[in-house]
């Protein structure tokens, strides 16, 4: 049953994405940016997906520390992996957009820098997990590390408002810049599709993680015998 729901969710996400790509391809070029602006329809959703995944990792980590249930530890690592994947998509799409518009692949402005730092932190989290053998200690230490890493997220997000940066100011929820209504609709659909994919990916990784845990415990039992 659970698998069928996941398949359905994945299918729906791909249908929405296919339809959106068709619609986006037919949008007229933007006045200043030409066709390059269209990447925003994938750039923003990947940030929303990454943010959601990372927030899920934080909540799971906190819940693990409270309940000591390994279910939450598995959720934390699954969500972090998916988060790192979407962070990568966000960084790459941003870079692809920056090349024709700013003329450079990368700029060391605060938001890009802190995003890269977050990517390094969560990448470090995944490496850190591999370096600890004992499962309880691994789960506990990783949860603490995840909380420390997440504290960086608000600093990341608010940096664009604290410091003057080169990054285009947010066109949503702000007075500068405008986004036509039908574009907003497509963006909304894309965000939803990305979030659905996030759920599917996390669920698949979660199952793998639980299978891995069972294998580990069987192996330990075999050793004990």
């Amino acid at each position, binding site marked *: 049953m659970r698998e069928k729901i996941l398949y359905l969710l994945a299918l729906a996400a791909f249908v929405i994405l296919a339809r959106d790509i068709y619609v986006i391809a037919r949008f007229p070029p933007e006045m200043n940016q030409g066709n390059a602006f269209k990447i925003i329809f994938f750039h923003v959703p990947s940030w929303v997906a990454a943010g959601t995944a990372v927030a899920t990792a934080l909540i799971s980590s906190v819940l693990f520390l409270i309940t000591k249930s390994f279910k939450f530890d598995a959720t934390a690592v699954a969500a972090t992996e998916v988060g790192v994947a979407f962070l990568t998509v966000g960084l790459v799409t941003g870079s692809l957009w920056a090349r024709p518009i700013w003329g450079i692949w990368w700029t060391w402005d605060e938001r890009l820098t802190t995003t890269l730092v977050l990517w390094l932190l969560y990448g470090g989290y995944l490496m850190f997990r591999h370096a600890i053998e004992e499962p309880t200690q691994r789960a*506990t230490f990783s949860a603490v590390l995840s909380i*420390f890493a997440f504290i960086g997220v608000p*600093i990341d997000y608010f940096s664009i408002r604290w410091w003057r940066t080169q990054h285009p100011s947010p066109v949503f929820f702000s007075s500068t810049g405008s986004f036509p209504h039908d574009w907003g609709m497509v963006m909304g659909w894309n965000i939803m599709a990305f979030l659905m994919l996030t759920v599917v990916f996390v669920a698949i990784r979660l199952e793998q993680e639980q299978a891995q845990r069972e294998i580990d415990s069987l192996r330990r039992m075999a050793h004990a015998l």
Partner: protein
Amino acid sequence: MQPTTIAEAPSAVRAAPVRSSVVHQVLVIIAKDLRAELRTKEAVNAALAFALTILVLFSFAFDPVEEETKMYAGGLLWIVYAFAGTLVLNRSFARELPNDCLDALIAAPISGAVLFLGKALANYLLVMAVELVSLPIFGIFYYVHWYDHFWQMMLVLALGTWGITVIGTMFSALTINIRLREVMLPLLTYPMLVPALMASMQLTVDLVNGRVIGSDPAWIRVLVSFDIIYTAAALFLVEIVLVG
């Protein structure tokens, strides 16, 4: 013979538990760590030698003339401090591993937060000592007038170093039992330190160029908030890390 009850036991055996305040407990840990370090001086000496080595290497990276170094002073100085500081911090909890000293410390009637605070403060003093020795040398090598706003410079040094120390000590505890500890600690510490290092670098460059701290309060705010937020998080979470 009548069996001896606890009430009748010799007074030495039922000595009243030593009640001590949190401040006293922290001071005991600080004194213990400083004594252990100052007997061998291995971490401090290594950190100082390392700091000097990097300072020499930087002279090859760019032309060390006064106009150039005015722009880069903050970055150079804090990279040196972050690298050298890690050498001290790396040893902080690892030093307790031989003879199971860490287990004894955890079993001691003090909270994890007290142990952490004591260790962090001892590290702070050691890292500060290394920094205060290398600062004048840096000034001489790179013609930097760091003493123009002496007390403001000390404030930046104190706040920036606390940021390095609190993160470094926490991660020293986190990485104590893992493979590749020497690699993992810097890998996790430096990205975490970025806001603190950025702020410290910027403030140092400002001071070297004659701009006082108050002229742009954003960076000092970042530095202070970083210190407060991560100190609170570390004190709150360290018990879980040490005791589980």
